[in-house]
């Protein structure tokens, strides 16, 4: 499903019309394709205060073939050297006074940023600050980055990653993700890393090679896209969906060389059947993506028990039950396992007529955060991804007005595509994302809802 408005607004006739009518002209986002360079140009790397991440950063960029410019060099460079990314190491902040240095570095570089550029700010988490002044400075970055994300145009994004002392090894994977086309629709996000055993290196083209990944709700929509991206990244995908969706499920499985496993995840024996299937057929599982979800909208006062219970059963209880069963089944969840749970913007912002759905999706966030320590002990991770407005068959049936407004009220002025959610999930599932745990990543183009 393509975003027709974005294509139209960027076509010859369309762009003239859009300009004359004063309509927004959403940028064509830079999305990942196999073989693609990490960045289409050089990266400016600078720091505010005595940053401790410069060396790591420079190594990641050099390994990816990205030219690294110092802020001074960038300023004087010619047009062909316009930066594709600005990375600010703000781990040296001691108080608000140093924030001016952040501004000094960012302002000229951002001015020269190429379309579909990336701004990435790295800092220590406010919670571990030595003083209120230091905490204030660190927290201030959130306001800075979120505002900058709203100011950026032409498909550029800005995100903030908190890197606690000792979690430096966790940094490479998120840096690559946020700079790459995989994060096209991830904007204005704040992530906190944790210390972890990060496996040395992975095949950038096939980070999931040799992994077995379960994707629920894989027969269509976002789930089918997740299955495709996981397979592209090298995983064997066990595609799960309700038996009634089996025809398209089989088509997805055959397209990607995966297997179709027809299962209603709310069946009383669903967890046991999944565990047995994974044990017997694959000897275990590396990645579990809880994507299946349903909506049964009604205002709270008109909501019947069936709507409430149905949504809870699929969207929340099944995620809890399947995950618990996998954790308890000896040896099935392999070391370094990744569990990614699909939440929703509604779970963060709430949505009229969706008290059941939003409750279930907020519940997913609570679940992920609570489970993170147990997963960390196993060298595994559990995270949530909260999609915003994603253009699918489901949204295609919405009234045009609602759909177009829904799609535009974000900093990228367009709806996301299923592949954007899929890329984020595939990244969280990759071995080197070991230091991202208990996090909620919104894939919403910095939606104004719940921001």
């Amino acid at each position, binding site marked *: 499903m393509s975003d027709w408005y974005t294509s139209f607004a960027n076509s010859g006739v369309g762009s003239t019309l859009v300009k004359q009518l004063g309509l927004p002209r959403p940028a064509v986002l830079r999305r990942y394709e196999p073989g693609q360079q990490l960045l289409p140009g050089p990266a400016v790397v600078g720091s505010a205060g005595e940053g401790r991440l410069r060396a790591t950063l420079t190594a990641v960029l050099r390994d990816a073939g990205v030219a690294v410019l110092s802020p001074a060099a960038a300023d004087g460079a010619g047009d062909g050297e316009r930066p594709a990314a600005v990375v600010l190491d703000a781990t040296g902040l001691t108080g608000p006074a140093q924030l001016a240095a952040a501004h000094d570095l960012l302002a000229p570089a951002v001015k020269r940023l190429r379309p579909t550029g990336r701004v990435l700010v790295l800092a220590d988490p406010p919670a571990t600050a030595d003083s209120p002044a230091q905490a204030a400075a660190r927290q201030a970055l959130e306001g800075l980055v979120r505002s900058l994300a709203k100011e950026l145009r032409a498909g550029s994004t800005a995100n903030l990653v908190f890197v606690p002392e000792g979690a430096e090894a966790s940094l490479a994977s998120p840096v690559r993700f946020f700079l790459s086309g995989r994060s096209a629709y991830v904007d204005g996000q704040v992530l906190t890393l944790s210390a972890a055993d990060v496996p040395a290196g992975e095949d950038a083209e096939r980070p999931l090679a040799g992994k077995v990944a379960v994707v629920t709700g894989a027969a269509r929509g976002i789930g089918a896209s997740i299955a495709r991206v996981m397979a592209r990244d090298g995983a*064997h995908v066990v595609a799960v969906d309700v*038996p*009634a*969706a*089996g*025809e398209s*499920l*089989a*088509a997805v*499985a*055959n397209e990607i*060389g*995966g*297997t*179709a*496993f*027809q*299962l*209603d995840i709310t*069946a009383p*024996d669903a967890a046991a*059947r999944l565990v047995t299937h994974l044990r*017997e*057929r*694959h*000897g275990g599982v590396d990645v579990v993506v809880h994507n299946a979800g349903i909506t049964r909208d009604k205002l709270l006062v008109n909501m019947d028990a069936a709507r409430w219970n149905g949504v809870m059963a699929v969207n929340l209880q099944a995620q809890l039950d399947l995950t618990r069963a996998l954790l308890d089944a000896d040896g099935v969840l392999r070391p370094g396992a990744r569990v990614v749970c699909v939440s929703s913007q509604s779970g963060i912002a709430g949505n009229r007529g969706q008290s059941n759905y939003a409750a279930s999706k907020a519940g997913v966030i609570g679940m992920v955060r609570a489970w993170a320590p147990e997963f960390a002990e196993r060298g595994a991770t559990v995270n949530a991804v909260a999609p915003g407005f994603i253009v699918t068959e489901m949204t295609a049936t919405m009234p045009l007005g609602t759909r177009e407004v829904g799609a535009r009220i974000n900093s990228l002025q367009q709806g996301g595509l299923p592949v954007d959610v899929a890329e984020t999930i595939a990244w969280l599932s990759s071995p080197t994302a070991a230091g991202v745990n208990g996090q909620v990543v919104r894939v919403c183009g910095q939606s104004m809802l719940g921001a």
Partner: protein
Amino acid sequence: MSSPQPRRAAVLGGNRIPFARSNSAYAQASNQDMLTATLDGLVARFGLQGQQVGEVVAGAVLKHSRDFNLTRESVLGSRLAATTPAYDVQQACGTGLEAAVLVANKIALGQIESGIAGGVDTTSDAPLAVGDDLRRALIELNNARTLKDRLRAIGRIRPGSLVPEIPRNAEPRTGLAMGDHQAITAREWEISREDQDQLTVRSHRNLAAAYDRGFLDDLVTPYLGLTRDQNLRPDTTVEKLAKLKPVFGKDDPAATMTAGNSTPLSDGASAVLLSSDEWAAEHGLPVLAHLVDAQTAAVDYVHGGEGLLMAPAYAMPVVLARNGLTLQDFDFYEIHEAFASTVLATLKAWEDPAFCKERLGLDAPLGAIDRDKLNVNGSSLAAGHPFAATGGRIVASLAKQLHEAGSGRRGLISICAAGGQGVVAILES
């Protein structure tokens, strides 16, 4: 050089599309469409994309001339490797089970390591044949070189020869419909209407329960919008069935066979994956059961005074004796419900000392079976019966049932077929 010792072929699972009633959900689907979709569902379930299996063996009972090389053409249209050999078989309603036996035998002999057995039939897209007069005239027209010859050929076509011959479900040698044949057997064996209706209700209930407990989740893949067998009536009752009028053997005022206790004309396809134990292990696929042995038999229903569908009764003692088993040594029985009365007459025959002595040449009758072990997940009365697809449906479902019950469990399959034939087989988990 010594030839390899026979080994038992493993049944790894199966796939079928829901069976549709004639001229309904699959009215626009051809045999090749359905068989290809069924193979693709099997490929998706077992991750066989681009893989070559030893052989694909399948068939259809009602075939168009365009169904030439049906199985191979279906393989070429499927996600299996194009280098997978295939051939067609046809043994009327025994086709599907016979295909499985053929695949299993090649595996047993070490000639192939894996194979797929299947079957498909459509009664909606059934071939219409032109009469012999018209056919001859058309051939002559095609061969004619001059205008005069052509006109002469056309002139030979009479209006009457333009009426196509619609295929009937009738025995060529007797002109009797299969149901009318079975009505004779039902009368001979005094099979009551009530017993037939009860068996029918049980078939529907068992199949509905199997769906409800998810038993068919890894046996069926929806097709063309159909997610369950169209003929399935979970809420049918003996009272409802009692209201139906007899449709076969109607010359008898006490006729018992209705559209309820007979299988409807149906469309559908099935496929079963078989292999050696080694191949299964290499592919990480659990073995559900092994095909232990099989036997076919045929009866002379034209002159010999035996019922058209009684051949399985004859095949059974042979396979039991060869394996040192009695009829009671089984945990599950799958007796194909062509008609409820076929199942009941066959069971009665095995209990009957005179039949077993005089017809089967046995000292003692084979005896009764525990009816609770019969068709526990429903059978053709509920699912429908696309002729060549029934064998595959039964083999996969019985293998799964045996696997669920634990190892060392035995199951028996009995399928009757047109032309007075029958196929029986033993599976063991």
